[in-house]
Each structure stands twice: as structure tokens, then as C-alpha cells.
């Protein structure tokens, strides 16, 4: 990594660029929130921000502290009950991209945010649970994940499946989605501190772009399975001066999430 930008800034920038051309985005707090707001100022000016708390067309005047910060309401286009947000926006299929975090993820993009440990009732670590994640995972047309990668998080077998990825692999996952009447095509982009991953026709994660200074060896050390690598592996272009300015001056001046 160079001195010019942090790993978090690289993640934010990489995720923002993946939002090019997208229209309606279900925003999470933290890194996704900055990434979405960066995209709106760069590659996706028409992006509409949706918050699960019940807001459509949000224009937060500051970086929201939580998923229900009052700044996401004032000046928004519409505020609805959570019933309507989950039923008429998300399950209805109006969300183009949803962001998810993950404590554990497997090669098919299945995600665990519930418990670490084999016993659900008496876990080693109790995580937040689904919240809206299992609904976002199946109903957003695309799912983006931003997370730091490590051998503890990129695992062969997750302890609990909170949010489905491509269960059973590519063709099988597509069939299951169709059978259940889900709107989404599942996980499409994983952005980590080391690189950018998409999913191949087998529904498996594939390293498509390495961030500057990251190495394939480092990726292999931090993944619990044999990670597929694109035949033409790219190098992620570093953040531009303008991208860094937007993050540092406008979006996260305190550096809470991006340092």
C-alpha cells in the first residue's frame, strides 16, 4: 500500500465505481454509505438512496451516524412505514443494488452475520443477526459486499447461513431463485481491502482485480478455499485525487470510516 491512500479509501472507491449506471440503491451505514454517496457524486449522479428505516430519495446533509439518522429524512422524497419499505420497495423488486456486510462468507457468497460457533443457541460469538440482510440478499437485483478479508471471514464453511448467495452453485442457484420468485440475481460484487471479486458461471467468487500493492499470495493466505482467479487479472486503478478529495473533505471529514 502506498502512503497516498488507505485500504478503506481504496475499498470505498472500488465499490463506488462498481455502482456506475445504477439507479436505486439500498444503503447500509459505514463504508457502503460513503461508497454510495461517492458514486452519486461521480459515476452515478442519478442514484436514488433508499434506507431500510423507510426513506426513499434521501439527501443526507451529513454522513448518517446510523441507518435511521434524522438527516436521511429531512429533504427526502418519501418517508414510508417499514412495512411499505420492505413490501413495496424491496420485495416488490424496485431495488437495483443492496449492500451487505459479512462476518463470514463462502465461495458462493453465502453470508453469516448471526453467530460464530456450531451451536446457534450457545455460540462463541453472537453477531447482530439478519436485520434486513436476508431480505436484501434475495430481493435486491444485485448484491454488493464490502468487507475486510481474512482467513476467519473468507471460509470454506460458514457457521450459519443468514443470507443466501448462490446456494448450490450457479445454475442451481438460478433455478432456486426462479422457483422462489426472488427478484435478485444474488451477489455480484465483493470489494475487500485486497481486491475486487465477481462471480463466475459456477456461481463462485473469482478475483478479477487486485488493489495496488496487494498480491495473489496475500489473497490466498486470507481465503479458506482455493480462490478462482480471472485469466486476465487486472490491477485496480488507485483512487483519483478527486475521489480522495470527496471522501476526505465532504463525506468523511473525521475519517471515521475511511482511515
Amino acid at each position, binding site marked *: 500500500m502506498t502512503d497516498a491512500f488507505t485500504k478503506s479509501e481504496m475499498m470505498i472507491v472500488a465499490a463506488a465505481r462498481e455502482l456506475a449506471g445504477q439507479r436505486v440503491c439500498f444503503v447500509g451505514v459505514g463504508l457502503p454509505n460513503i461508497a454510495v454517496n461517492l458514486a452519486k457524486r461521480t459515476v452515478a449522479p442519478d442514484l*436514488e438512496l433508499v434506507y431500510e428505516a423507510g426513506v426513499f*430519495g434521501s*439527501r443526507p446533509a451529513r454522513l448518517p451516524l446510523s441507518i435511521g*439518522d434524522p438527516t436521511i429524512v*429531512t*429533504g427526502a*422524497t418519501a418517508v414510508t412505514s417499514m412495512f411499505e419499505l420492505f413490501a*413495496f420497495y424491496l420485495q416488490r423488486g424496485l431495488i437495483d443494488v443492496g449492500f451487505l456486510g459479512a462476518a463470514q462468507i463462502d465461495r458462493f457468497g453465502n453470508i453469516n452475520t448471526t453467530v460464530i460457533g456450531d451451536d446457534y443457541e450457545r455460540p462463541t460469538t453472537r453477531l447482530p443477526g439478519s436485520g434486513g440482510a436476508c431480505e436484501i440478499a434475495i430481493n435486491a437485483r444485485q448484491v454488493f459486499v464490502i468487507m475486510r478479508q481474512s482467513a476467519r471471514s473468507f471460509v470454506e464453511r460458514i457457521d450459519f447461513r443468514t443470507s443466501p448467495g448462490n446456494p448450490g452453485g450457479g445454475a442451481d442457484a438460478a433455478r432456486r431463485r426462479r422457483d422462489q420468485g426472488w427478484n435478485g440475481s444474488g451477489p455480484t460484487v465483493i470489494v475487500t481491502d485486497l481486491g475486487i471479486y465477481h462471480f463466475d458461471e459456477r456461481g463462485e467468487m473469482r478475483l478479477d482485480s487486485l488493489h495496488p500493492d496487494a498480491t495473489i499470495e496475500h489473497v490466498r493466505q486470507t481465503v479458506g478455499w482455493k480462490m478462482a482467479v480471472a485469466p486476465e487479472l487486472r490491477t485496480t486503478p488507485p483512487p483519483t485525487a478527486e475521489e480522495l478529495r470527496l471522501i476526505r473533505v465532504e463525506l468523511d471529514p473525521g475519517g471515521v470510516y475511511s482511515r
Partner: protein
Amino acid sequence: MTTPKVTSMHDAIAELVRDGDTVAIEGFTHLICFAAGHEIIRQRKRDLTLARLTPDLIYDQMVAAGVARKLIFSWLGNPGVGGLHAIRRRIETEELARSGETPLELEEYSHFGMVGRYTAGAARLPFFPLRSYFETDLPRANPLIRLVESPYGDGPVYAVPPLRPDVTIVHAQRADAGGNTQVWGLLGCQKEAAFAAERVVVVVEELVDESVIRADPNRTIIPGLIVDAVVVEPWGAHPSYVQGAYDRDNRFYLDWDPISRDQAASAAWLDEWVHGLDGRAAYLEKLGADRIASLRPGPAPSGQVDYGAYR
């Protein structure tokens, strides 16, 4: 942030309502978009399935004009006056024999059943459960009303299937150019009917700046995201009403009763008031300024609240 969607009623109906469509012009007694119904008649659309809780005069006129082959509904009447005679002419045995008209297909629910259908359509649910219909003949009359077993061992309830109109048309007090739409007063099931639809036309009394909408986001019932066309058509709900803007024109509801009892009189009315006019402006002119003015209510301001600026 949003593309302007403002267009004329002519173009909105020409582009978005197609022969054979299922069309829902919703609005429970309030905000019934007669202007859109008349434009559909004027453009001689055919074979429409018309969905609406209460078909009201507008569907009676559309049926009289021959645009419809089927009704999906829960209450058939001229509210406070009596029956809908153009529709009844295409249902009742003797009337059908006398008139020789094609029978109208009917798909009938209760109010909550219709609301449940739109809700399931808007939420992409495969069905909506409700406690109605036991010990009634409705499931026999409509085999789409079906039993579903509760998975909690407390027996069956009835369910209705999702309704997903090809087009939903909603009248509202105001919207911005992007289609973000606000309503006050009776809300009916316009929100559900709009989210359930493939295409949405919003007809408004007033086009407002986006900042007016954004000043009070809790009043927005339909986001521009699902709106295909915004038509600015003041008085477009006449003879129904718009809360705060005008009253129901009850004389019109009374007058329609004798007209609609007579096939020839109905046709003559349609010729004079729909086909003979090129749009809503001409209709209002024909109606007369005095009659319009008499429908204005006095003021009853809402007061305002503070959303707070959080920077």
C-alpha cells in the same frame, strides 16, 4: 435527480394504455380520475379489464362506451344515488336479451379482498390471507377466492390472489415533475394499486417544485420511481372531488341516473361530453365557470410541523 415525466393526457393514455390491458383507476370516492377515463373512451381503447373497488360513474361510462370486457370489483353502484345502469345492462338476463349486448365478465370480491389483492400485487406476495368469506357464497361465485391452511394449527382462512394491473391511474393533489406524488384526505388504496402496477400514470391538480415535496416527505404516497407519466389536469376528478380543492358535484351523480338507464341517451351523452370535446379544458368550459366555482370549499389549513435541519 429524476427525469421529467410531464406529458399531456392524450399522450399518456395513447402510450401507456393498450387494448386488452388491465386498468385500475383507483380512488375510493375521493380523487377519481374521470379525465383519464374520458380520454380512454375518446381514444376508443378496447377489451380492457377494469379493476376498481367501486366502479362508480366513470366505469359505467367506460362500459357504456364499449371499452371494457371485464370488471374486477367489490361494490357496484352510484354512491348515494342507486345503480350503475350501463353495467347492469350487460349483466342482467332480461336486459341482455333486450339489448343484445355482450355480457360483461365479472370477478367479484369484498372491499378488503380487493385491498388485499392490490397489497399482494404491490408486495409480490403469492396471496393475501383474510378472515372474510366463510359462510358466504362469494367463494362459489369467484373460484379465485381460495382456502389456505394456517401453519400454526389454527385452521384455514381464505386468501385472494395478487392483482397486478398493467396500468394504474391515480389522481392526486400534487406531484413534482419526477412523479413524486402527495395526497391528503382519503387515501383509499391508491398506493397499493400503484405499486402493484406495471405502469403508473399520475394526474394532478397542481405541478409543484421538487422542494415542496421534499419539505414534507411523509405526505408522499407514490415515489416518482414507479411513475411513467405525470399529467397536469386541474379539475380532472370532477364530478368526484379533491380534498381541499373542490367538492363532489352531486348533481352530476343524480343526472347520470336517468341518462344511464337509456342506451341512446348514454351514447348521446358520451358524444356530447367526451367524443365531442378534445380534452378536459373544453369539458370545463362546457361545464361553466359558475358550476365549477360553486364547488370550492372554504379553507381548513393543516398547520405545519418541523422536520429539523440536521447538518
